[in-house]
């Protein structure tokens, strides 16, 4: 029978996992459940949730560091930071609404376990780049720590980063410590309209190669623009290319001007003021333009200049619509493919152009039948299996979520 376990402290969590290992009981690891539809469907006997582990345990704004228990709602973290004029640099994205879920269900440890960054990733890095320390319990029921609370730390192996992006398959995190940054005083956005994908990505890459510290570089195909919540932008009815500048107000004005001048050959450039900029980038963080559809959705990371090639190669196989983030290097692509969510063709395209693809949204039977995460080459697959066994020898934590055989 399925049971729901909600430990109130690390020790209880350790007892539960030690027993599960002894009895070979597979367990689903959950934070707020906002990403539970990502990965291969699992057949487990129990759920363990971190929601009983809550609260910010350390916040030193002047040292740009915060610690929080694993199940602390992300919303609470971001509110606490905003109250002191700070933020998470990497703009964590929200996945829940892609599957019809509610907003603001995510936890802080879930964010690191998935390692999914938003638009600012190109300038500041991913969640894994900001994770300083982790406490947790591995599959053996052992309580461990790695890293610490200081910005620089090369003492021993970097297990923190090993846990980032492991989707709850190695350990249940109990507390995380991470770097935070000052929120920018001002934000502005430059918009170009109607560019074909290839030219748009050229614009994004040209902007990234300037000294003006562009912190968002996206391109939306027309069908994607039609789903924007921002009415004024939606009404444009054509492809939209956007660049964000964040800084002190005076610098934003100066840098926007310089950047416009630099890119003027590509056509008319429109400005979004601070308020409209915040609305636009805010809805992208929630993946507004990918909601309200149940078409299979892929998230592909590739070199930026390969982005449009990947998209047009996929479009040759199936009907699709794409949203480019990360200067063209992150492609969110919805496909209308009736059989395998287009997996076979998409994997072939990735093999040609480089990078990796994850199936973020699809029916459970599809996610059972195809590889959801990028299949690994034999050497890396072997290491991956051994790392899993080092943390979780009985294979009780989210078994089969990332890869079928472990």
């Amino acid at each position, binding site marked *: 029978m399925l049971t729901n376990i909600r430990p109130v402290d690390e020790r209880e969590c350790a007892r539960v996992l030690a027993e599960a290992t002894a009895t070979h009981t597979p367990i689903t690891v959950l934070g707020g459940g906002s990403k539970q539809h990502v990965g291969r469907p699992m057949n487990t006997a129990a759920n363990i949730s971190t929601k009983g582990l809550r609260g910010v345990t350390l916040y*030193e*704004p*002047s*040292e740009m560091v915060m610690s929080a228990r694993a199940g602390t709602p992300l919303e609470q973290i971001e509110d606490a930071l905003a109250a002191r*004029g700070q933020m998470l640099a990497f703009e964590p994205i929200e996945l829940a609404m892609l599957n019809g879920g509610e907003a603001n269900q995510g936890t802080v440890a879930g964010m690191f376990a998935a*390692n999914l960054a938003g638009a600012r*990733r*190109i300038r500041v890095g991913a969640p*894994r*780049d900001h994770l300083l320390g982790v406490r947790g319990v591995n599959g053996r029921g*052992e*309580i*461990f720590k*790695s890293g*610490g609370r*200081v*910005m*620089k*730390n*090369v*003492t*021993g*192996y*970097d*297990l*923190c*980063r*090993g846990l*980032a*992006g*492991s989707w709850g398959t190695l350990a249940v995190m109990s507390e995380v410590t991470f770097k935070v*940054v*000052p*929120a*920018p005083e001002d934000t502005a956005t430059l918009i170009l309209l109607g560019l074909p994908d290839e030219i748009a990505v050229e614009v994004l*890459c040209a902007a*990234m*190669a300037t000294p003006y510290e562009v912190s968002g570089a996206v391109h939306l195909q027309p069908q994607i623009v039609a789903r924007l919540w921002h009415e004024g932008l939606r009404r444009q009815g054509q492809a939209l290319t956007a660049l964000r500048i964040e800084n*002190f107000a*005076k*610098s934003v004005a*100066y840098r926007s001007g310089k950047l416009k001048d630099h890119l003027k050959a590509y056509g008319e450039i429109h400005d979004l003021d601070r308020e409209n900029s915040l609305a636009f980038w805010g809805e992208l963080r929630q993946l507004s333009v990918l909601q309200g559809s149940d078409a299979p959705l892929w998230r592909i*990371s*590739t*070199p930026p*200049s390969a982005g449009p090639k990947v998209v047009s190669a996929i479009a040759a196989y199936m009907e699709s619509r794409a949203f480019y983030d990360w200067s063209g*290097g*992150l492609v969110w692509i919805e496909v209308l493919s009736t059989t395998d969510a287009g997996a076979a063709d998409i994997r072939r395209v990735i093999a040609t152009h*480089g990078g990796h693809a994850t199936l973020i949204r699809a029916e459970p039977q599809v996610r059972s039948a195809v590889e959801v*995460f*990028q299949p690994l*080459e034999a*050497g*890396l697959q072997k*290491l991956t299996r*051994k*790392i899993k066994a*080092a*943390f979780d020898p009985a294979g009780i934590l989210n078994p089969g979520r990332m*890869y079928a055989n472990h």
Partner: protein
Amino acid sequence: MSHVALPEPDAAIVARRDTIVEDLRRLIGPAAVIGDEDGRRAYETDALTAYRRMPLAVVLPGSTEEVSRVLAYCHQNNIKVVARGAGTSLSGGALPTEDAVVVGVSRMSRVLEVDYVNRIARVEVGITNLGISEAVKARDFFYAPDPSSQLACTLAGNIGMNSGGAHCLKYGVTTNNVLGLKMVLMDGEIVEIGGAHLDSPGYDLLGLVIGSEGQLGIATEATVRILRAAEGARPMLLGFDSSEAAGQCVSAIIGAGIIPVAIEFMDRPAIHVCEAFAKAGYPMEVEALLIIEVEGSNEEMTDLLAVITEIAKPFAPKAIRVSQSAEQSAAIWKGRKAAFGAIGRISDYYCMDGVIPLGKLGEVLVAIAHICDRAGLRVANIFHAGDGNLHPLILYDANKPDEADRAEKAGAEVLELCVAAGGCLTGEHGVGIEKRDLMRVQFNETDLTLQMRIKTVFDPKWLLNPAKVFPLDGRTAAALEAA
């Protein structure tokens, strides 16, 4: 200084030295193998020169495939291997053992590809850190991590130690700037991790490998991020009556939402030695000095430095100097950059590398002064204030053997103090042999066992970079069990 024990070499391996050298020559050619004693002596130590061991043999492969052949051979024959970049490790990370083959990557130093559109460079890891920036300088790009030894140190060593530098407050350390690696595992298998795209599929193997001190494999090629340089950079100097005031000023700057590209701190002894050497024009009457550098256009930098000057006022700075020219900027940095050399001219010194929370700076410096007083030794402190990385330089006279011992013991006490203050043993130099036996100050047995299990995953026979990172008596059966 030689408190750290090194294990007895494997006599059977040492006895087979001539055969092994012959075998290696057959594998990768005679010119790439150094077997004679004079040749090997150049590799007997690194920048932690108190420790020296003659390696069994030295190989200098020219390709990934040659590295693979050497490792596969050593794996089959149970021969230990020590990877080496430029040998600039301050923690003994590249120290050989008498029964180990040194694999130097210095011949593999080519730039393979520069892609300005995707902002990456693919290089062989024997390239120097500065060599990467030099290769992309003409287009105003650079490779961000900038350890002080960047003229000499290799990317290979930076990957091993996850090196940082003065500018990592803004740009991050090695692990934040490497996107892909080609790496040879101990059994000779070649794997590619990551690439020209962002974030890995699957577990973050890059994150595990970077900073693993050459114990998980030998990287041969890397794809690194290159960044467009800012329009300009300009430093200012601020002098204070106390270290506490300087620390509080740094807190206030960051609290105001400003992240300078560098914030360097020097205490009075460091200021005096650097000024005597570099004639940088530092104020001599202050207890603490901050060098704060910002980036941007001329106007942006002028504005930002004016704001910082305002923020500093409540902390009663005794000296404020904003650079007005490239010459003045160079002068301000000259003293700081010369610090290690300048102190080395007046004394032998032992350079520590702890990290502390910024808010503890004042009390930690007082405690360090007490520790060194008790040991009868002088100390000068250099601090990357923005990220909490503290370098106390404990001065001693190498001709008095008890002084060297006292310095090493005082150093260990300083590091224990850093951990107790909420920090860690090492911010950028790595554990190596130097801090190996202090690991239990920071980690318990479970923490260490988990790390050692990862070691076993990559290198089941524990042949790579032996006797480093983990206490020698700590290799529990749990850590060594076949994964």
